């Protein structure tokens, strides 16, 4: 990206001026000069398109890890007001609705567990269905699946997957309201029947990590983190059901846009006014997919606990937090001194409520919302806390962001060689897809340290802990 086309407003905040004749809202980009310079120019095109959608409140924004997506850029944030003709965009949520990370803290330390990590890796690989074509053991009939879509992680806990206390640390207590299973196609439901409790493929993973560094002792204490501690992060989403809902509504809303009076600058931004029948139909289906994702991560949490217990008899895994990063959530934000109910799209962006937010669990209220920036399997991940006065509708980065395409990565790395290389660094990879490993090579991602540092410098979230991967189950 050529930075000369931007105005630098603050050290880590930039704007994109309108071209002559261009009619759109403001575009703001959070990031440092090196991170922005590494982004594709299409990020600017995509976020400028978002800024032209009706009913946008404030600016369309990108996070420091932004990269070229489809419709919205990955790392895009945009809030819309239904009362001002604001829209809900299927392209602003994406195919993997409510993809996110469940983070578990353990009572184990690396020094006590190291010798059995290979055994743990093997058992996790057996227990966690991962990769394309893999199904889970749980097969749901139509009534049960509808109950999942209504109940989310709360449904899973009622079925014996995990503990009620988990739900305190899951967004919306594990169940978003407004889910409409009737708005979900039969094909979407059929795709999900064998996919509950599965990890998926691509950039999804289950990692066993060690807390290598604490940045913020007070927040770390609140989050129950200390150096040397074993952590588990589970990254996945709403599986086939969410993918099919994304597919179904993308085409439906793209076709409906013209008769709804919306001029789409990019068909992938397929959207409808929040108050329109089409908009409400999508919101009901999207919320069903969010509940599906929350249930999926709850089931995987249960499978992970059971596996840890087989290897370490005294292991306890508590839910630290569960955050989604492909969603549209209805939230109240103060705009010009007045509270307004907004539909906040975060596509590849994490919610990051500031300290004191009423929706945070009491344990974290003083520290701020746990924010997880997932890095590559060879580098590490960060846990952050929502910053005071977050200026981006309480949003922050969600990952390292890709530095090169999957095709480029395939030409540079080979799965087996990469697995051996990582093993020499003490990182155990278990996978059924050598192609997937090569595509996800650590070198194919941006510098996660820089993304986390800039996220903090931009005032979006504060670094709390750095996690180094020890075991990674890849789909």
């Amino acid at each position, binding site marked *: 990206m050529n930075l000369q086309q931007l105005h630098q407003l603050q050290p880590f905040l930039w704007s994109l001026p309108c071209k002559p004749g261009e009619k759109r809202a403001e575009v703001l980009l959070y990031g440092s000069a090196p991170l922005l310079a590494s982004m594709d120019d299409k990020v600017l095109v995509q976020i400028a398109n978002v800024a032209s959608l009706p009913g946008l409140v404030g600016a369309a924004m990108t996070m420091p890890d932004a990269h*070229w997506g489809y419709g919205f850029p990955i790392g895009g944030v945009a809030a819309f007001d239904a009362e001002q003709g604001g829209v809900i965009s299927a392209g602003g949520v994406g195919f993997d609705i409510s993809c996110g990370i469940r983070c578990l803290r353990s009572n184990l330390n690396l020094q006590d567990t190291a010798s059995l990590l290979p055994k743990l890796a093997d058992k996790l690989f057996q227990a966690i269905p991962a*990769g394309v074509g*893999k199904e889970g053991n749980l097969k749901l009939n139509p009534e049960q699946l509808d109950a999942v879509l209504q109940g989310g992680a709360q449904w899973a806990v009622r079925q014996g997957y995990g503990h009620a206390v988990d739900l305190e640390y899951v967004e919306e207590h594990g169940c978003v309201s407004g889910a409409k299973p009737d708005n979900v196609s039969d094909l979407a439901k059929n795709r999900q029947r064998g996919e509950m409790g599965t990890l998926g*493929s691509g950039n999804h993973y289950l990692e066993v990590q060690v807390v290598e560094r604490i940045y913020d002792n007070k927040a770390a204490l609140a989050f129950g983190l200390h150096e040397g501690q074993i952590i588990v992060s589970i990254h996945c989403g709403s599986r086939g059901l969410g993918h099919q809902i994304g597919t179904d509504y993308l085409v439906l809303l793209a076709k409906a846009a013209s008769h709804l009076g919306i001029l789409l600058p990019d068909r*992938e931004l397929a959207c409808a006014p929040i108050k329109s029948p089409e908009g409400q139909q999508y919101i009901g289906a999207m919320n069903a997919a969010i509940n599906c994702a929350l249930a999926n991560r709850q089931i995987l949490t249960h499978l992970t606990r059971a596996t840890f217990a087989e290897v370490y008899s005294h292991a306890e895994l508590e839910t630290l937090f569960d955050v989604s990063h492909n969603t549209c959530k209805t939230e109240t934000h103060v705009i010009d001194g007045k509270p307004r109910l907004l539909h906040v799209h975060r596509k590849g962006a994490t919610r990051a409520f500031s300290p004191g937010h009423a929706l945070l669990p009491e344990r974290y209220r003083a520290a701020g919302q746990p924010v997880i920036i997932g890095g590559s399997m060879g580098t590490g991940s960060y846990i952050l806390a929502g910053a005071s006065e977050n200026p981006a509708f309480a949003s922050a980065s969600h990952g390292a962001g890709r530095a090169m395409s999957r095709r480029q990565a395939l030409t540079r790395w080979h799965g087996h060689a990469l697995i051996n290389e990582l093993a020499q660094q003490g990182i155990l990879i278990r996978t059924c897809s050598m*192609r997937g490993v090569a595509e996800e090579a650590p070198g194919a991602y941006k510098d996660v340290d820089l993304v986390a540092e800039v996220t903090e410098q931009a005032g979006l979230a504060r670094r709390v802990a750095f996690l180094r991967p020890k075991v990674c189950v890849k789909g």
Partner: protein
Amino acid sequence: MSRLSSHYFEHDADIGIIGRGTTVEQAFEAAAQAVFAIITHLDTVQPTTVITIEFEETDLDFALVTWLNQLLGKAREQGMVFSRFHVQHFGSKWHAEALGEKWRAGLEQGTEVKGATLTMLSVKQIGPEWEARCIVDV
């Protein structure tokens, strides 16, 4: 004479697929091969089971996305992977068959394709050849 070929183009996070052929139907078949070659090695898939896909669509761009997404949906619904494709098109009516088999040990597990997007989507004739392309989300 059939000149069906599959290709890819670059995208930061996902994958751009291209299908080319002497007819629009062949371009759609080649696009499907490009998608399923991301998922597994097509040469190892036994085309023992046939599934049928039918839909109506007047817009060629939307027809490509509908075709690919119905294939992906059926594959996941049936627990299958496809390697051969036959597409017919009469006006707005599309009739297609996909041949493949259930997932089994021995099939390479590549990368899951979540869906075909409307981004960089186009179906057009370039000289004597038809080309169908879009970004697929992985």
